[in-house]
């Protein structure tokens, strides 16, 4: 029984997602008639009615007590988590015990991240976000909500099954030679060629990478590109997985790899919703690069991109990526090479610099509005802030510049809409034939490696340590992780690798990570636990670039209502590194984490020795150049 809801301060639902159980419960409780066609609005109304008292009470508490609810729990262990971002209230509910309070909080923050990726600076303003998330047109709204729901479900699936989304770090395929070759390919054959092409209409490839399922095979950034943060990369993987879901299920793998053994069904994958099925089939079919006339693909708005019933590889999605100044609009092209292997290109769109100005004004206006609401006169502007007049003249100047750029802009109140039109005009990256060529080149390049890669993605790393059951090693400085796959079925790896035991271990690993993060949030960087027949360790430490281990520091403990520990959401580790670097200003500081699960019968001394050996060995692969 799950639900996620976004509402604004006037208790208007901006978006909701529920599972069928929750929907049924609400309908039973409120006797909502379930007529075909009418079902949706009626259900939306009842959701609205149900949550309205909570939403209203939230604003009362904020206004009158300066405090706000963060969670409720009931005697039958239903959990409600609430979080307010500016004017937008998120509520996540779980009634089936699958998710903890922490999970729900994370889900809320991920939802927030997804809206930021999709809508950029619109999320700065409640009114604009409302317009964007709740279009007047019901059709349009349904389409958007369907897209958001699908993204949320994709995230939940990844969070539940994929270790890289468990620890929120990108997993790399460990194969130095191939990796290097691919990077070279991306650089010479793809990015350089596309960017030197005259047909690209002002677009420029900034980043290119190849994913094998959710794992990163190679990544290349052009010289003028700014840094792509791990949080964005993870969010982009969610988008890619939403377009081309890969079937990483425990039993599927085991059947693939062990066709000789008696098939046993240990794990039943959750039934996918019917609409997902069609997408999956598309993902499965061999990719055909049928590029229609790219000009036809022009999308005026990101919403219209969502509209497209089939994800056309040459139709880019608009994504907003973090940069120093503001969320910068980019185009993302996803090209499935084989099922499970995807080439992703991120391009800078022409006029994207407009975003910086718009962002500036948007923030200025939001501040101004707040000030006016609080009763300060515009004239009595706060110190250090430009006056209204100043803002106005700046804005006028900007609009003139835009006019010069052939953008139809005349009125102040239209500034935003017009920006959107401009910024959202998707220029097709290059002619179809060219894109086709690059994709073909990629296909040719990887042809021999394809099967290897797909298997490798499931059995990335193995390590022989008696008594060691599982580990996850994370380099937080570059946001990457290494771990043996939990769905490995090769008998040589571990007898624990399949069936209910694997599932049990998986649960344990998931709970270990959650536990470690909870302790880390409270400032504990080393944790060992003896739980049942297993012994768990967690370590976080800092090193300089040469691998010299730096002294441990007191990590500030963060409040319970703060962002969850992770990278996808608010990037805790980036802040942690910044905090540590203040004390080591003249050297590069790196941050590592190690999670291990051992058999409990192994003496502690051996376990700790293992951990330290493991950390030493794993340090090596991270030396592979990725850029």
């Amino acid at each position, binding site marked *: 029984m799950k639900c996620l809801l976004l509402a604004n301060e006037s208790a208007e639902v901006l978006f909701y997602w529920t599972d069928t159980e929750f929907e049924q419960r609400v309908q039973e*409780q409120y006797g909502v008639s379930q007529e075909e066609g009418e079902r949706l609005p009626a259900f939306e109304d009842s959701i609205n009615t*149900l949550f309205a*008292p*909570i939403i209203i*009470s939230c604003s*009362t*508490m904020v206004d*009158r*007590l300066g*405090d*706000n*609810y*963060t*969670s*409720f*729990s*009931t*005697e*039958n262990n*239903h959990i*409600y988590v609430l979080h307010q971002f500016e004017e937008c209230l998120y509520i996540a*509910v779980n009634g089936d015990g699958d998710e903890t309070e922490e999970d729900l909080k994370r889900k809320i923050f991920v939802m927030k991240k997804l809206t930021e990726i999709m809508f950029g600076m619109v999320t700065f303003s409640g009114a604009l976000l409302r317009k964007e998330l709740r279009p007047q047109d019901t059709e349009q709204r349904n389409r958007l909500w369907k897209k958001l729901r699908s993204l949320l479900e994709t995230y939940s699936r990844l969070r539940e099954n994929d270790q890289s989304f468990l620890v929120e770090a990108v997993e790399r395929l460990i194969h130095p030679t191939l990796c290097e070759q691919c990077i070279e390919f991306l650089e010479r054959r793809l990015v350089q060629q596309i960017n030197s092409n005259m047909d690209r209409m002002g677009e420029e490839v900034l980043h290119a990478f190849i994913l094998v399922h959710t794992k990163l095979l190679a990544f290349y950034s052009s010289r003028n590109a700014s840094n792509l943060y791990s949080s964005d990369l993870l969010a982009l993987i969610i988008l890619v997985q939403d377009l081309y879901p890969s079937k990483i299920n425990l039993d599927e793998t085991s059947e693939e790899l062990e066709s000789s053994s008696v098939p046993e069904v240990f794990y039943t994958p959750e039934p996918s919703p019917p609409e997902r099925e069609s997408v999956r089939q598309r993902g499965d079919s061999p990719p055909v690069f049928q590029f229609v006339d790219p000009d036809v693909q022009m999308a005026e708005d990101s919403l219209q991109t969502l509209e497209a019933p089939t994800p056309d590889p040459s139709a880019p999605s608009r994504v907003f990526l973090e940069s120093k100044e503001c969320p910068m609009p980019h185009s993302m092209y996803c090209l499935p090479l084989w099922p499970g292997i995807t080439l992703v290109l991120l391009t800078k769109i022409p006029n994207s610099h407009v975003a910086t100005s718009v962002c500036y004004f948007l923030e200025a206006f939001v501040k101004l509005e707040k000030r006016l609401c609080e009763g300060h006169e515009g004239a009595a502007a706060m110190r250090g802030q430009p006056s209204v007049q100043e803002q106005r003249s700046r804005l006028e100047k900007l609009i003139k510049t835009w006019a010069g750029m052939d953008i139809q802009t005349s009125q102040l109140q239209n500034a935003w809409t017009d920006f959107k039109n401009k910024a959202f005009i998707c220029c097709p990256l290059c002619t179809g034939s060219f894109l086709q060529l690059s994709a073909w080149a990629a296909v040719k390049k990887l042809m021999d490696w394809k099967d290897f890669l797909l298997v490798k993605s499931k059995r990335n790393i193995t390590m022989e340590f008696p008594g060691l059951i599982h580990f996850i090693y994370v380099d937080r400085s570059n946001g990457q992780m290494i771990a043996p796959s939990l769905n490995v079925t090769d008998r040589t790896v571990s007898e624990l690798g399949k069936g209910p035991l694997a599932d049990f271990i998986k649960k344990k690993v998931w*709970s270990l990570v959650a*536990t470690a993060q*909870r*302790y880390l949030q*409270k400032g*504990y*960087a*080393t*944790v*060992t*636990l*003896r*739980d*049942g027949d297993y012994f768990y*360790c967690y*370590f*976080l*430490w*800092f090193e300089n670039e040469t691998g010299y*281990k*730096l*002294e*441990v*520091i*007191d*990590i500030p403990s963060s*409040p*319970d*209502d703060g962002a969850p520990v992770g990278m996808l959401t608010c990037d805790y580790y980036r802040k942690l590194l910044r905090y540590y670097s203040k004390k080591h200003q003249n050297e590069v500081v790196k941050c*590592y984490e190690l999670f291990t699960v051992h058999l409990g019968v192994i003496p*502690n*001394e051996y376990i*700790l*020795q293992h*951990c*330290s050996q*493991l*950390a030493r060995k794993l340090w090596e692969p991270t030396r592979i150049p990725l850029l």
Partner: protein
Amino acid sequence: KITLPPLTNSFFFLYDSSKVQEEVDLTRDGIYYFSPEDTPIDQQELLCGQLAGVCRCVSELSSSPVRLLHLRKSKYAVRMKDKFLWALSCVVDIPDVSVCDLLDQLIALFCFYNGPVRQSYQLYSKQELALRWARYLCHLQGGSTELHHIFSCLRTIDSTHIDPLLLLKAALILQACQRCPLVLAGCILYRGRVVSTQMPPALTVKVMVYETQTYSQDFQVTANGLSSLVGSPFSSTATTQVFLMPTELHMLRCPPVDRACRSHCNQPPCQPSRSRLLSRTLSDTPTTDTDSSMPSSPRSSLSDELCFSPSPSRVNTPIHSNLMNQSEYFTPDSHVHSTSNGTNLCAVEEHLAGLNINQIKSEENKLDANNHVTNKNGNGETEEEAKTKSKQINRKLKEKNEPTNTPSPHETLEDTSLVPLVLYQHRVKGLVLALLVEPEFITDHSAREEVHHSSLASLNGLEAHLRNTSPGTPGPPGPYTFAHYDCIQNTLTTNVCGRSVGPQDQAFVKATKLVHSHFSRLDTLQEAIVRNASSAVYGTRTTAQETYFLQQGTPVRNSGSPDPQDSAFSLPRKARLRLLKHGVNLL
């Protein structure tokens, strides 16, 4: 550095939503009790109104009562039952499980002394009951360390400084009392701390209410006053009606063999109190034979001698008898006030309000003199007084009872689920023998005599011994900090002392909170070591105990990377060695 007990700045309220149903109803009508009482009424209304509204909404959505409500700056443990809503707040870093336990204890305390809540509010004014809530709240908050709140444990006498023979003696006194078949179980308290108990911890804590308060550190001045006071001969007995839950009663009535079995089966001590308010169905209703067979004589807060005379009035319905006792037992501080003297009651009131401690002291002294006389000079007069008083009370009762309607079916159900019993207390200076006895005990003259006389001499002896035992100057604090919680007896042994807590102790308490919370969530978790830059804490638990250990001193420079030489990992070995001398066996 002084750290305040975690509940000092907390809110507690009882709200009846059945009083606020129409638009015109005022929220304040639903507020039965709100602490701190000097909170402005509009703020009280705001909090009660908002929390009650949200709780109702959530409980409807989930078809289950709300249990916990987190805010950014505080958290509330919540109980919802029959339109009542109790909420107790605390700071956010107290474990959820601890604050929920505290609220449950608070409600249980109220019901123990007053019976069902709805009925109590039909009988007494909000003001009268507010006084009691305040007292119970004070009892739970009073004077103990943060660790005590985390484990919500009993305050026990420091057994390491006491001749074990004395503990044996205490246990023998209790066993001797049990020879009287009407005595169910007992406990012996010395200056607000448990010396020996036969009751489950949840019951012991209820019996201790007034004792702990008297001797808690919050009332240091008063306690000093009393300790000077107990120098004079001072012995009295009193009885109070109390209400037990069927589960509690069952545990008391089952034979000792079963009792042994009980602890063997390892039933979590707090379980009955949890289930109590959650589901009370007809099937839970105990055999009502006690109700019907209960002789309804006025339970007296007066000295026991008074009760030897036949009671002038007899009331026949359980409810009536209950009313009777309640109003008579207006302030159940019977152990202090063995005479029913108006001034004494006043003194108690003031004492509670914390108004003028010096005045209280003098009142107590006066009272002491009074008692002294009473006990010495026979009791013709007092008996007379008592009779008049009970008549007055009867009148008062009738007045009160007439306008009240017959209880609703639900309330009747609630009534039958709490079983009236009698708490007998025999005080010898700082020492109190508290026995839970069958109601017949009061009228059974010979039984009373027997219990009184069989225990009197031993109690006097025990008191003298305990008084002469040096309060135990704690030895030089070791280079470590520990806390050992006995889940079965609900007791805590620790060397974190009092309220002045150093940085190492703070680090210890912080880690203990987290690990305890983790233990409470994960049954299979056996041990944990958590380490930050300045401290490492080791926690281990079995079904019977939880132990936490911190080695003091600055840790050797380390990086936090996996290292077998890391001193944090030697904590289990150190804890095993060091704690042996505290009677903690971790082997």
